[in-house]
């Protein structure tokens, strides 16, 4: 006896049944395709949107920052019960303070699992002066190579070449246009009573207008002397291999070191909640569309089972087992799912193409990159196909449950 060809009977009957109910088959496949297209398109769109938002907001930010703890006032002793005490504690003004022992902390953090780069920073406020013009600035003293590894500064240079020798500085493009500066020009940076002149080596676009208007990056030593923190740094900025591990890692470090450690999620709570809200609504849309697709496949197959009742009875009389009949309908569901999702992915690709061609920002550039990645496509197609098979379970069991005699009699 020849070995049983796997699903040979089931797939032949399934294909023939689908071909027989041509209109139904076409309708349901188009339905599945539309559903899959919506899911794939929305997913690609939101992924693109989130990446775009993420890069714009987070590109210039460290994932985790480590600073010295805020100064605080020890509160007065609590009054004994029954005694009324008048006490008033005023919060302390926060002065710039160095991260204690940062030189020995630095290698420790660099060894930390999951940390990609660490950059010591001296940050404070100041004024940029050129001729008559004065701008308030955010001054950052950095070690260029380390800093570059955290915020990829070199990629953001739009004019000049990134270089931070003593007496040199890198500034944001808005600041440059406000003060009429080009690479090679000089500007004076003033903090309190100290002022220094720096030569601009490069202009950078940090993606956010406010940052571009305020940023002045100078060598670590220069900032230390300008801000009165000789040998000190105000924070250590960390870049992680996995962005989303920042929160847990910050909490971990908080437990181990007596410092104030913040993750980007904590400093950008609004962004995180916006991204989350987006993610949740996308998930909801996907789930609902998926349910509609599943119900569509199931209902068409239920109708098909009713229509094919006699044929099912005949096949059963000829010796087809219940399992074989169940699998006939599962295969039908699977075929509808696979063909529908392939059509759907093509449709999604078309929609994405139209989006990139016709939806343009004010500058005529595409708003942001939106691509249907292979992994997303495979994922969506797989889910739709599996759902197609699952949707077929109920009708299939109904088909198999009938007594052959009863089925034929109708």
């Amino acid at each position, binding site marked *: 006896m020849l070995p049983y060809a796997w699903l040979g*009977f089931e797939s032949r009957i399934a294909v023939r049944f689908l*071909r*027989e109910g041509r209109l139904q088959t076409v309708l349901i496949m188009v339905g599945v395709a539309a559903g899959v297209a919506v899911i794939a398109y929305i997913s690609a769109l939101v992924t693109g949107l989130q990446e775009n938002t993420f890069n714009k907001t987070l590109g210039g930010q460290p994932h985790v920052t480590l600073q010295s703890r805020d100064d605080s006032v020890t509160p007065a002793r609590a009054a004994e019960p029954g005694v009324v005490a008048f006490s008033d504690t005023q919060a302390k003004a926060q002065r710039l303070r160095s991260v204690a022992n940062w030189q020995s902390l630095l290698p420790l953090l660099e060894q930390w699992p999951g940390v990609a780069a660490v950059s010591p920073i001296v940050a404070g406020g100041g004024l940029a002066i050129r001729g008559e013009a004065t701008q308030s600035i955010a001054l950052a003293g950095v070690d260029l190579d380390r800093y570059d590894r955290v915020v990829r500064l070199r990629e953001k240079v739009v004019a000049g070449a990134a270089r931070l020798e003593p007496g040199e500085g890198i500034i944001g493009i808005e600041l440059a246009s406000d003060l009429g500066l080009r690479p090679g020009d000089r500007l004076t940076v003033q903090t309190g009573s100290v002022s220094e002149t720096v030569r601009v080596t490069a202009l950078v676009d940090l993606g956010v207008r406010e940052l571009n208007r305020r940023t002045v990056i100078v060598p670590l030593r220069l900032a230390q002397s300008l801000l009165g923190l000789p040998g000190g740094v105000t924070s250590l900025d960390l870049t992680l291999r996995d962005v989303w591990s920042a929160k847990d890692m910050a909490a971990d470090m908080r437990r181990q070191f007596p410092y104030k450690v913040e993750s980007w999620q904590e400093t950008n709570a609004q962004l995180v909640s916006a991204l989350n809200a987006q993610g949740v609504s996308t998930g909801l849309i996907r789930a609902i569309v998926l349910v509609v697709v599943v119900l569509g496949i199931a209902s068409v197959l239920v109708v098909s089972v009713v229509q094919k009742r006699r044929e099912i009875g005949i096949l*059963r*009389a*000829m010796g087809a*087992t219940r399992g074989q009949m169940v699998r006939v309908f599962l295969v039908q569901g699977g075929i509808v799912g696979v063909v529908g999702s392939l059509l759907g992915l093509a449709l999604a690709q078309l929609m994405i193409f139209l989006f990139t061609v016709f939806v343009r920002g004010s500058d005529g550039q595409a708003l942001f990159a939106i691509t249907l990645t292979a992994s997303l496509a495979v994922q969506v197609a797989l889910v739709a196909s599996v759902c197609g098979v699952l949707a077929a379970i109920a009708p299939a069991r109904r088909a198999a449950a009938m*007594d052959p*005699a009863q089925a034929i009699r109708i």
Partner: protein
Amino acid sequence: MGADATAAAQGQRLIELADVRKSYNIGLPNEAEVLHGLSLKVDRGEFVALIGPSGSGKSTLLNIVGLLEPLTSGSYRINGKAVASLDDRALTLLRRDTIGFVFQFHHLLPAFTALENVTMPGLIREGRVSRQQLERARELLATVGLSQAMDKRPSELSGGMQQRVAIARALVFDPPLVLADEPTGNLDTASSDGVFEELRRMHRERQTSFVIVTHDPRLAARCDRVVELVDGAIARDEPVEASSADSSHP
């Protein structure tokens, strides 16, 4: 019981029904018993006509014999196996390997050609149609005079041709038993004779057992044994006279 077992062991006894009852709508107000304690034995190689008025339970009996419906009480052994102890899968496999069906309205699969319909039992068994099976199906279709119509769909064939396809399908795996429910029921006299001749020829050539439900006394007279059912019980069970049986052997 001992004698029955011997008969089964010798492979002579094919069907053995004892005190079989069948009720529909059990537990409902319209509960009805269709077969009232019926007993019947059929040996290998018999050619039996099952006759009786409408509603006498012929089709129900045939469905029970064909393992298409469960019986309510009583016992049924087919090919030596007690049916009561089998689950649906075992019943299906037993039906597949033991019984060929020729239904009243032929019951071919409309989506498949004549040849595909005849190879369907093979597809069900092995998940593919081997060359051997294809040869056998072609041969059978040619035997019933349909070598020109193999690739036609049932809707393109006449009633007599459809019925002959159904016969070819029932015989493709050479089952020991063929059950036919009004195989000529909706055919004109000429086609009816042709189809019946086909059945008789298969019987002669292969020693297949036949149980044929029919309304047609002419047809019944050309079988070897007539069992008459009235109101769910056997009213008559006798061999057909040699003279009328002869007429089926021209």
